[in-house]
């Protein structure tokens, strides 16, 4: 019971805070004070670890939980630099003339949405604002549903709502198709053969946006959001290498390191890597969204994890890991 009480208290506070976030938002001064208190707590952990007492994992969980939740109520931002690979993708999109057709492949599901959804939302808003036509597909079953969330987010923008894009003319959702990389391969010959109708069973030939769109040679750019297989690697191996269509991608932070060789070789036209890539993309497209908010939370969590790693290594070097009862 003693161990559960702090967790219950934390959960209750979190639920209360969710419903009263605006009233609980901390001023800049309080935010800095809370950050300092968190730092002092880490120093206490360091002292205890050096003295030979290991920290129970529940305390580690508590630190991570606090470092993730508190930034949501903090009132400061940190400067963000746009990395070269994000700039490359944005420059490629910016060069597209009005009316260009971009194939947006949403290849992820809700677990990866915190990282990839902000990228999709920013892209969709930017595309609608700049008269870029968007053809949405998904190689994952939930992909087209996540794409609809991006479309709804874009349509909710007041400026875009003044001149809303028209379904079937400015954007279309062709839905999910099973077959993994064979779908990409088939689209290289005929997109119609893989997507004979859209998400709402409208025949391919009845959709104005798709008139004249036979295969990749009629697509100006592919924007892929990927959380695994099938995803960016398959798009590069087939769409870029076999059919020569330029592809830019947004990946989760776990997958991004695997596709850096494609960025370096020029096969991938830009990369948005993880939450920071999404925040940078929001900054460069001037489409503010959730990524910047989430990134502050992630920043604190990263610092706490690094702090614990360093504390553990300090204890190793001090050589004072004695057998004493753990804290907590």
């Amino acid at each position, binding site marked *: 019971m003693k161990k559960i009480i702090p967790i219950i208290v934390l959960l209750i506070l979190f639920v209360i805070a969710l419903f009263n976030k605006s009233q609980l938002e901390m001023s800049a001064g309080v935010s800095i004070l809370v950050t300092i208190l968190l730092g002092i707590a880490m120093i206490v952990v360091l002292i205890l670890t050096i003295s030979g007492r290991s*920290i129970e*994992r529940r305390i*580690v*969980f508590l*630190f*991570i939980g606090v470092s*993730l939740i508190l930034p949501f109520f903090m009132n400061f931002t*940190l*400067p*963000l*630099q746009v*990395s*070269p690979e994000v700039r490359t993708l944005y420059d490629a999109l910016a060069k597209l003339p009005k009316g260009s057709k971009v194939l947006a492949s949403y290849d992820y599901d*809700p*677990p*990866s949405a*915190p990282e990839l959804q902000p990228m999709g939302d920013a892209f969709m808003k930017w595309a609608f604002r700049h008269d870029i036509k968007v053809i949405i597909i998904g190689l994952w*079953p939930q992909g*087209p*549903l996540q794409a*609809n969330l991006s479309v*709804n987010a874009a349509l909710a923008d007041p400026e875009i709502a003044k001149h809303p894009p028209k379904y079937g003319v400015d954007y279309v959702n062709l839905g999910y*198709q*099973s*077959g*993994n990389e*064979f*779908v990409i*391969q*088939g689209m290289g*010959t005929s997109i119609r*053969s*893989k997507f004979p109708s859209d*998400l*709402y069973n409208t025949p391919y030939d009845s959709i104005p946006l798709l008139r004249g769109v036979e295969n990749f040679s009629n697509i100006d750019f592919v924007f892929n959001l990927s959380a695994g297989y099938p995803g960016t690697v398959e798009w590069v191996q087939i769409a870029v290498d076999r059919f020569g269509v330029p592809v830019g991608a947004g990946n989760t*932070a776990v997958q*991004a*390191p695997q596709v*850096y*060789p494609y*960025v370096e070789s020029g096969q991938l036209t830009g990369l948005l*890597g*993880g939450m*920071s890539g999404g925040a940078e993309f929001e900054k460069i497209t001037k489409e503010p969204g959730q990524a910047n908010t989430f*990134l*502050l939370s992630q*920043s*604190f*969590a*990263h*610092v*706490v*994890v*690094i702090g*614990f*790693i*360093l504390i*553990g*290594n300090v204890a*190793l070097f001090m050589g004072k890991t004695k057998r004493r009862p753990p804290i907590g």
Partner: protein
Amino acid sequence: MRREIPLIITFIAGLVFVVQYFIPHPPFDAFEQVFTNWFAIVQAFAIWLGALSLMKFSMLKIRRKQKDWFMSVIIIVGFVVMVAYGAYDGFAGMHASPTYSFRDAGTHFDWLYQNIYTPLTSTMFALLAFFVASASYRAFRARNLQATLLLIAGILVMIGRVPIGDWLTSFMPAHYQASNLATWIMNFPNAAGQRAIMIGIALGTVSTSLRIILGIERSHLEG
């Protein structure tokens, strides 16, 4: 024939895709279209196979009252509710005026997807953060040179991929700020290592695929 027929099917399918890659002209492109369509159909059926297997396993667990059998009840209830509401919204949408899809905003299915499925799956994924932190504290030690290099690279990438890294290293020259160091690590040592891994995997895949197509490797036929 029980072993020969699958071997023949494997050989023909593999041969068609290999030949089609190098000769993408009629009639080989037509074969490729047929086989990729068949693959898509088989994969679609595999989704149902997975779902039905899960239902069968869950029902057996409930019937035998095995440990945590109540979780199997939740699985079956969740599955049935999503399918039922999806079917209901689908049929209702087909006969409504104007017609709508079960995936459209405002349907029961959409509510379940946005308010139950999405938060639950996101939460499961998010739990990893806590366990990674705990595991890092306990196991990430600089015991030797390789571990030390991994530790330094990991810390630099972690701190460089968030804006707090640049804020902490803002006093340093631009090339040595955290984000630029992280970018250098990703673009050079990481890319080199990933290329080596990719080439190794590709060579292994070619070797294994040839063995399977030629029937030398038959482990996929067992069981």
